[in-house]
């Protein structure tokens, strides 16, 4: 009984957060006398208006889900893997590197794609584990280690695009020379998304769900996250688990980065991580670290991203509005959680 009551209450509070967020954005729109209803409808239309748009939404959904899955693992281990952006980037770099390596060789493109994706995952994992090592053996807080590594990764990326891997003559923001179509992950008809990416993502989702819910490893991670000293005293090899969580997160980030290259851009671009890493962290917080919610919420965020494109075209509004909406959503939901705990008095 009591539980049922608290559950319905907490749903109520989350609704409250939702309303507040939309209210906040509405206020902003009114303050610059734009029509909120119109704006929200446009975003909706822009996301689901037609098949192409829906396809684009899934193009964003794929990396978002992968990254979120990754950060859930580190969150469970009590780690704030803010270095995720850099890890995505490294994934993309390794993938590109491998493809470039085999570009003019007889090796079959399909094999090259597979290799490159694996390489991407490895590369990102290395970068993630680096942050882990700094944390575990250097006592460098993962937030700041990761932050530094993000900047280094981006610098490396830009350095390659404008330097070693630049196009003949024109180093340009458009990235490296696109790969021949043979090296693209085949897309569905003339849409931009590939069933292969979707499949990989779904697999990832399932793996993470069961890893965190049902396995001994997942539980040990949780123990490490909740109380590292005690976990160690109880016989859990804690630093190994922390590194493992970084490694797993890295693999997912790497996959995301790799797919950005082989399935979306078909080349390395300066902003290859597209801020998905940070967005993944946000989603992780929004869903309160429950794997079951990753897919829908990621879909919602992706929809906002794509739908937001209509704002400037039709209403001459900056698309960053959707970012504001996403952010205030997470913020208000979090705040309402706090309010709930105050009201119900349960910690």
């Amino acid at each position, binding site marked *: 009984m009591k539980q049922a009551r608290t559950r319905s209450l907490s749903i109520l509070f989350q609704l409250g957060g939702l309303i507040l967020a939309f209210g906040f954005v509405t206020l902003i729109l009114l303050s610059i006398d734009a029509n909120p209803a119109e704006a929200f409808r446009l975003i909706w239309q822009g996301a689901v208006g037609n098949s192409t748009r829906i396809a684009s939404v899934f193009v964003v959904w794929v990396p978002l889900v992968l990254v979120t899955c990754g950060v859930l693992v580190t969150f469970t281990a009590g780690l704030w893997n803010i270095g995720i952006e850099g890890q995505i980037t490294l994934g993309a770099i390794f993938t590109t590197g491998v493809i470039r390596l085999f570009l003019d060789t007889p090796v079959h493109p399909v094999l090259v794609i597979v290799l490159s994706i694996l390489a991407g995952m490895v590369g990102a994992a290395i970068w993630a584990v680096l942050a882990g090592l700094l944390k575990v*053996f250097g006592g460098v807080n993962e937030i700041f280690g990761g932050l530094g590594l993000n900047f280094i990764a981006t*610098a490396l990326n830009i350095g390659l695009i404008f330097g070693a891997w630049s196009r003949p003559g024109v180093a340009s923001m458009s990235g490296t020379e696109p790969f021949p179509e043979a090296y693209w992950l085949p897309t569905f008809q003339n849409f931009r998304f590939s069933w292969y990416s979707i499949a990989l993502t779904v697999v990832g989702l399932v793996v993470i769900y069961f890893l965190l819910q049902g396995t001994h490893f997942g539980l040990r991670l949780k123990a490490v996250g909740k109380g590292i000293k005690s976990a160690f005293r109880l016989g859990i090899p804690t630093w190994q688990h922390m590194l493992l969580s970084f490694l797993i997160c890295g693999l997912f980030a790497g996959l995301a980065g790799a797919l950005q290259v082989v399935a979306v851009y078909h080349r390395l671009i300066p902003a290859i991580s597209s801020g998905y890493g940070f967005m993944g962290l946000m989603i992780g917080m929004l869903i309160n670290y429950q794997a079951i919610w990753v897919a829908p919420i990621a879909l919602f965020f992706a929809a906002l991203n794509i739908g937001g494109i209509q704002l400037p075209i039709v209403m001459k509004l*900056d698309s*960053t509005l959707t970012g504001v909406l996403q952010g205030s959503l997470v913020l208000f939901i*979090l705040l309402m959680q*706090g309010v709930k705990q105050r009201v119900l008095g349960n910690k």
Partner: protein
Amino acid sequence: MSGDIILLGLAGVIASGAPIVLAAIGETLTERAGVINLSLNGTIILSAMMGFWVAVEFDSLLLGFFAGALVGALVAAIVAFSSITLKQSQVAVGFILTITCRDLAYFLGNPIMGRQGPIMFSTPIPLLRQIPIIGPLFFQQSLMTYFSMILIFLAWFWISKTRPGLMLQGIGEKPAAAFVRGANVQAMRYFYTILGGALVGLAGPLYTLSVKPGWKGTITGLDGIGWIALAITIFGGWNPIRVAFGAYLFAFLQWLGLVLQSSWTFIPSQVLQVAPFPLMILTLLLVNLGNTEWMDRLLATLPDGVRIRVKKLIRSLRSQPPAALGTPFERQ
């Protein structure tokens, strides 16, 4: 390069380091009180936009800076409320705000892009400016730069040499102990979080009204500054003097990068630009060596005399964060 050119360059370093000093010192005060405000990056961009906007609208630098400080204080107030009162994770809230504020700035700032705004020029100090070396270096700056320099010593003095400063250290160290000594921990935390936020908020307008005047939306070139300031706070080990050193070091490396660009063609210019970050990581490593267990193992292999000395050295390097950093306080 002749001496006075280098001097001019270094004076420029001090000027372009000023906003980072403001932000990092502000964050230092906040964290000394045991609160992490991770929203710096967003706060700076938003306050930069708002500050510029207000300054343009009312053609008043003063109002511009005031608006910036206000924005910073407001964002910090949200962090304070959600972490101190609602007991939510400070890191989480700060992170959300850092993203949201940035987008908000770009959204709201769209109409004022490229407007010409007032600029805070340098106001040399009559006599002091003549002093060789010191003069051109420190006394031909803008008012805000002077303020930033004074702030360093104010903050250091406040934290380590005054009664409230001592209590501040206590609040960040062990809130309960501060509480039984009569401190109103929550109120103090609110105060220092908001004060720190206001200082961070000053950094924004300092960019758009002086250091790199004008608002250009996403290409204003401020995205990332906040993270850098945050990194420098850690780099400085929560100690204003060291924090300031970190800020100037960063600006100096940037300057070095462009000075050496043509001469040192063998290193890509990005290297020096990104140098502060590996540097920060190294510093963090250094100050944490003392706390690591493999270090003890390594030391155990050394001969006694050496070992004692090395241990002493490492302990002197070590800088511990305020023990209660990031943890809420509640009286039962």
